[in-house]
């Protein structure tokens, strides 16, 4: 039961965060794990877990900080080309690769904890109890409801910056606010399930495909909540496959998400999304 609930809210958070990431970076291939948030957060959590503390609330705070740190580096690098999607993705990948290597290093330096962090690092939902859920459930739900309340603003942010300013909105401020919300959500998730990637990439695209024939295919008032639902569904389904053991016992959910996400990314990429 806690595992199902965890899959549900973590999936919703990843889906929502992915949708927001794609909107504020105007990058159809945006995903928290592709701009350095997930791995940055994971690196800080592993470091803290290994050397300082195992208390979940402080780990979450550290994870949020790490996520913001990773994303900031990516965006600072991508600023050079005014956030061209291609550059943003490559810079994000580089930052992610760096943090992954750093995490492996930390993990091996302290082999005592490496057993407990190995499966966590692939992204795993097994053995998530009420304790974990209680400590992050509230912040995640809070973050999700904030996003839902503010979702109308996302539509306006999709226009070019001058247009947004002429509507009396502070562009940078709102981008930052949405970005922080998304990073916070992702970091909470990473702290309990590990760096599961690609859910945030896939969910909004499924929703957009589904909304393709409706009168409002690009309206974030619909896309955002539906992305959360889609994210939750994806994680529930992949987790169910992982539990079922058809593909081998103890298969971490993160592997399935990476396989699914890799295929979807490749198809979108081939179709010319960037």
């Amino acid at each position: 039961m806690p595992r199902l609930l965890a899959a549900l809210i973590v999936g919703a958070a990843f889906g929502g965060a992915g949708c927001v990431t794609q909107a504020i970076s105007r990058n159809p291939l945006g995903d928290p794990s592709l701009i350095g948030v997930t791995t940055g957060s994971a690196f800080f959590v592993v470091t803290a877990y290994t050397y300082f503390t195992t208390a979940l609330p402080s780990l979450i705070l550290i994870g949020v900080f790490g996520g913001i740190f990773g994303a900031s580096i990516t965006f600072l690098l991508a600023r050079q080309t005014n956030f061209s999607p291609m550059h943003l993705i490559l810079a994000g990948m580089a930052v992610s690769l760096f943090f992954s290597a750093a995490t492996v290093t930390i993990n091996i330096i302290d082999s005592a904890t490496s057993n407990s962090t190995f499966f966590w690092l692939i992204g795993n939902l097994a053995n998530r109890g009420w304790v974990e859920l209680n400590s992050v459930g509230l912040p995640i739900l809070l973050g999700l409801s904030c996003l839902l309340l503010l979702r109308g603003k996302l539509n306006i942010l999709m226009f070019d910056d001058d247009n947004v300013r002429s509507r009396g909105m502070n562009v940078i401020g709102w981008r930052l606010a949405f970005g922080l919300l998304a990073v916070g959500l992702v970091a909470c998730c990473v702290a309990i399930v590990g760096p599961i990637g690609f859910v945030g990439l896939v969910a909004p695209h499924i929703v957009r495909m589904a909304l393709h024939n409706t009168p409002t295919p690009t309206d974030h008032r619909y896309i955002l909540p539906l992305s959360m639902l889609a994210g939750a569904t994806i994680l529930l389904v992949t987790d169910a496959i992982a539990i079922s053991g058809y593909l081998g016992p103890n298969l971490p959910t993160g592997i399935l998400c990476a396989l699914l996400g890799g295929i979807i990314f490749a198809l979108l990429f081939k179709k010319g999304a960037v």
Partner: protein
Amino acid sequence: MRNMLSIPRLWICFFAVATMLLLGLGQVVGAAHVGFADVQALASHFADGPQTPQEQIIYDIRLPRTLVGLFVGVHFALAGMIMQIVLRNPLAEPGILGISSGASLAVVISILGADFIWGDVNSRAIAGFPPELVPLFALLGGLVAAILVLWFSWNNGLQPQRTAIAGVILGIFLNALVLAVIVGIGAGRAQMAILWISGSLFSRGYENLQPIIPWTVLGLFATILIARPLSILRFSDDFARNAGLNPSLWRVACAVVAIGLAASAVSVAGPIGFVGLVIPHLARLLVGANIGAQLTVAALAGACFTTGADLLGRAVIAPLEIPVGAITSLVGVPIFILILQRNLWRLK
């Protein structure tokens, strides 16, 4: 006389000496205490085999390991250099293009698959899969990965950044498959996974050295053969045609050589990343346009980089060790970012 002391020659000498020094240091650094005197003693009666425990350590553990690191470094550096020329892409490298991951998947499937079918679940030993065949499987995996990357990034031609993105994503996908295979059928061997995926020289012995040697010899020979075509392929296809080369044909031939070098290296040491990215850029920076000098310096510097990184990984937290791939990534990613930023700045 002036020609004897040209800058490329100086750098070649420098890296040759550095390689020898690192080869020597590689025998001394590590968990057990071994001195230079032991190295000297062993060298003086090498043909008779080791006689003291210290010499035994050098002979059985450290020498083969350092040699594997050296060969693997040469392979990755040359592979990266050739790929960058063939694709005319400064970001190309076996790791970034996903070719190393394709090779790893093939290796893991062949070794663990054979173990799964013929092996004994309760024994720690991995059932016999002929080690000479592993690099061949790796080559097959690398070729498939290369074709996939090119197909996904093809969009009226190849754009360097698109190819790099497609490669990294393919790499993530294939690494997930490698993990799935290890978790799925390599039950009880998951501990190996993280070490293998990050590229490690841990406990590499003569049995790993043996299968790679024919590939090194063949690879170096092929590299010498394609040096002239490579120097022409750096320019436009029209230029190549005027020089009497079929550009597409030679590009494919050179790519196969590069993939063979990278895949055989992956089959013994796992995907050690960023050696093939950093070293060719360094070589070009140091020696200028001469392709022969570039390739020579790249091969020697690649050997220095991997053996040096392995040394560092063994020395920092002895008796534990950091996998060499993690260190090359930590060094390589900032340089990747530098190339990315500078290249874009130039385009702008």
